[in-house]
């Protein structure tokens, strides 16, 4: 199954690959499918330099992940469901990056959140997995809603949700008073999705997912959706102080904190999760700096990170499979058992640390260059940048030594290196990283250049080379490596070092973001529960009481407002039999209210109903009369059937209650009477009924206007009524038949 879907992904990859010349030429390929053009809702797909980069990453890494999954998921149950969801996710992600309409983008955005939820909770028997999935869903879906609000807000300025229209109206959007709130909302969406501080905590939790999911969603694709959105909207919303400062600050904080937390982790996947947060921070930061150089660096780093992080996740999953543990303390000396994995990991970790000759080195150099030239807060960005990278170097070294070198670990399983499918993905990715690192011009010309050009909206020549010469950037790199090695060496030889660090961390960061989130959630749930219980108390009589009191208050108010109407006061008693009928109806209604037996009540209500139907008949509403008689008959029968289920009649309510009920029913009854009398005064618009009478036979071939209205003129209403009836019947059926007794 996994292999077949990998092939499908490959086909997509080849398709997008073949589109490179066309998509990178000019404005790219635009496909518009008119959906509901009346309200400006179209499906718009845009394949340009930017979306092409993402599309290639999604399908390319998707292929490798599916191959990996076909080996990894073998031992689990429910893999069909898993593959289905993972494949759907790939589709949703492709839809997202190809969207040129922001409402459409939002739909795919929420789809990816939802599928991520399903995939994280694959091991749904584990409470931890369920909780993590729920957490990530709440955060990313909530962010999605904020994004939608922002899109609607800014879309109202240019009266369109198409990115092209936004581009044209960029100036009016930026000068609008809605710019800042809209920007904040959209950024909130991007930040939650891309795990930026302070929403970063869902990402480490998401590591409860099976490793292929972590490699695909939580490192290479889904979390980059926020980055994609920022890059997409950069030409529209970027270039302002707000854009630069907010994004840069959030990005730089996330970058540093991610790296800072990663070094004290002991679980392989947790380490990778925190370094992913850090890398996402770098990407966001680079887009925030908003210079041509920084965007270039971002586009390149996108590849760098996707390559090494997906590879490392797959390696981590492989190690977990073969040794039975992901704890650093239990691993060590694996190079003897898994030599190929060792080599692959070295390459991937070199890239992560930003060391030559991999693509990572190139990425890091460019990033430093962009940071130095960043306007405004360059010094802060640079200091935190160097600190973050130093930690990355240390983490990479530490990872490698603790897992592969050193003395033999205490593995739960005897490791081997069987299963080439496990190593295919990481192998291809690290090889690419190495080759492209050695000849980066290929990547630069073919993909980075068009991506950059489509973001900056002008052609920009990109020349990438591995060796930049001795300059201040190189010195920074050197400093980073030296500092990183120092931390690594200390961490390796002084065992207490990291433990102390961890305890310091625990002391400083007493506030766990996850806990805050959970407390907020619990508080909200309690709040809703209390309020719901207040309104939904479960007493049917009080529901009815509320409805009737409220309705009569409104009606009496309306009657009071329109009191200058003249009520009909002329009543005639002829013909006598109708007067007699009215008297019978009145008497039986009163008797229904005071009768001491339920059967008597039902029957006298039936008498009222038959009486009314006779009045219909007198006014020659035959259809109405027949229906009323039939319904009345059935209602009496049904009531009798219900009655046999009830206990014997007893007076349980207090006198006060009954007086209250009497007052309420009199109020309601009297207002209905007044309304009925007033109705005689209302000037109805006869044109509709005249039209129906006139056209009934001519156009609808029916002499019975009532029936023609029911089945032709207003057939939609009838359909609604039939549906309501059926739903009611199902409700009765379910309530009575499935009662647990």
């Amino acid at each position, binding site marked *: 199954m996994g292999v077949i879907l990998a092939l499908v992904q490959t086909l997509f990859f080849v398709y997008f690959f073949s589109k490179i010349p066309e998509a990178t030429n000019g404005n790219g390929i635009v496909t518009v499918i008119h959906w509901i053009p009346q309200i400006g809702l179209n499906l718009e797909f845009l394949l340009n330099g930017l979306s092409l980069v993402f599309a290639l990453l999604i399908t390319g890494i998707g292929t490798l992940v599916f191959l990996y999954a076909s080996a990894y998921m073998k031992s689990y149950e429910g893999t069909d469901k898993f593959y289905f969801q993972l494949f759907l996710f790939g589709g949703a992600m492709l839809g997202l990056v190809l969207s040129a309409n922001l409402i459409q983008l939002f739909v795919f955005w929420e789809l990816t959140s939802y599928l991520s939820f399903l995939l994280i909770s694959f091991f749904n028997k584990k409470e931890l997995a369920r909780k993590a999935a729920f957490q990530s869903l709440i955060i990313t879906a909530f962010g999605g809603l904020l994004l939608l609000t922002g899109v609607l807000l800014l879309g109202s300025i240019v009266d369109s949700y198409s990115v092209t229209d936004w581009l044209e109206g960029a100036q009016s959007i930026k000068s609008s008073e809605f710019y800042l709130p809209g920007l904040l909302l959209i950024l909130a969406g991007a930040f939650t999705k891309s795990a930026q501080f302070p929403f970063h905590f869902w990402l480490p939790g998401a590591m409860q997912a099976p490793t292929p999911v972590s490699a695909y969603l939580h490192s290479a694709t889904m979390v980059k959706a926020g980055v994609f959105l920022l890059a997409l909207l950069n030409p529209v919303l970027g270039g302002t102080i707000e854009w630069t400062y907010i994004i840069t600050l959030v990005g730089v904080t996330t970058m540093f904190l991610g790296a800072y937390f990663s070094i004290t982790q002991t679980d392989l996947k947790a380490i990778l999760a925190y370094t992913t947060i850090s890398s996402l921070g770098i990407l966001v930061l680079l887009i925030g700096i908003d210079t041509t150089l920084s965007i270039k660096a971002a586009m390149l780093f996108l590849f760098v990170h996707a390559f090494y992080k997906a590879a490392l996740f797959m390696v981590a999953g492989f190690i977990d499979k073969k040794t039975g543990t992901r704890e650093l303390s239990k691993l060590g000396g694996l190079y003897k058992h898994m030599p190929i994995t060792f080599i692959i990991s070295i390459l991937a970790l070199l890239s992560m640390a930003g060391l030559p000759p991999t693509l990572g080195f190139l990425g890091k150099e460019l990033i430093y260059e962009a940071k130095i030239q960043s306007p405004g807060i360059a010094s802060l960005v640079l200091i935190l940048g160097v600190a973050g990278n130093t930690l990355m170097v240390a983490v990479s070294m530490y990872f490698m030594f603790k897992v592969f070198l050193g003395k033999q670990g205490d593995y739960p399983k005897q490791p081997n290196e069987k299963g080439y499918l496990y190593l295919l993905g990481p192998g291809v990715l690290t090889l690419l990283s190495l080759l492209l690192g050695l000849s980066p011009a290929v990547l630069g010309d073919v993909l980075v250049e068009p991506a950059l050009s489509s973001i900056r909206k002008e052609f920009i020549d990109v020349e990438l080379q591995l060796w930049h010469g001795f300059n201040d950037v190189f010195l920074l790199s050197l400093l980073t490596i030296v500092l990183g090695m120092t931390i690594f060496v200390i961490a390796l030889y002084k065992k207490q070092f990291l433990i102390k660090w961890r305890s310091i961390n625990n002391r400083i960061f007493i506030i766990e973001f996850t806990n805050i989130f959970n407390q907020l959630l619990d508080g909200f749930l309690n709040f809703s529960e209390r309020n719901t219980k207040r309104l939904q108390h479960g007493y049917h009589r009080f529901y009815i009481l509320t409805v009737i009191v409220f309705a009569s208050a409104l009606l009496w108010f309306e009657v009071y407002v329109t009191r200058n109407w003249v009520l009909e006061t002329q009543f005639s008693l002829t013909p006598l039999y109708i007067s007699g009928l009215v008297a019978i109806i009145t008497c039986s209604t009163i008797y229904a209210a005071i009768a001491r037996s339920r059967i008597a009540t039902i029957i006298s209500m039936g008498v009222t109903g038959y009486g009314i139907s006779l009045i219909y008949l007198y006014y020659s509403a035959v259809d109405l009369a*027949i229906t009323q008689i039939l319904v009345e008959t059935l209602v009496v029968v*049904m009531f009798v059937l219900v009655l046999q289920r009830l206990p014997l009649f007893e007076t349980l309510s207090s006198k006060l209650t009954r007086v209250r009920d009497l007052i309420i029913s009199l109020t309601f009854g009297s207002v209905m009477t007044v309304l009925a009398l007033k109705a005689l005064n209302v000037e109805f618009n006869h044109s509709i009924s005249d039209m129906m009478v006139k056209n009934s036979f001519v156009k609808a071939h029916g*002499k019975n206007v009532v029936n023609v209205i029911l089945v032709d003129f207003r057939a939609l209403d009838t359909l609604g009524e*039939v549906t309501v009836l*059926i739903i009611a019947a*199902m409700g*009765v059926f379910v309530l009575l038949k499935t009662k647990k*007794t």
Partner: protein
Amino acid sequence: MNSVILQLASPYVRSLLVFFSLIALLRGHNYPGGGFIGGLLTALAIVFYSFALDWRQVQKKLKVKPETYIALGLAFVLSSFLPSLFQSEVLMKGVWVSIPMGILGKLELGSPLLFDTGVFMGVIGVTLLFFFTLAYRK
């Protein structure tokens, strides 16, 4: 109920009621009647029959279950939309065909009749479902 007369008469009364209900359904477009009234009549016929005999037996003897009536009703209602759909007309617009019947004049058939039949069946199903569910007791 233990009335011999009622028990003996009930099959005939039931058949008569069903017959009238069909007439009500068919003539509904031109004279008082229609699917709703017809459906209620048929349902009443079966309810009446159940009162005369034992409702459990009647429920068992029913060839078409109430749930099936509901489904059939919905199917008829939906099928009445098809003619307008195939003619690329506004959905639910009535489509009529006229069949000449010699000296009897001509028979006019239209998609509203399908719709009315759907209502007819739906009402039968819903009413019977109410009835049998309410009548059910352990």
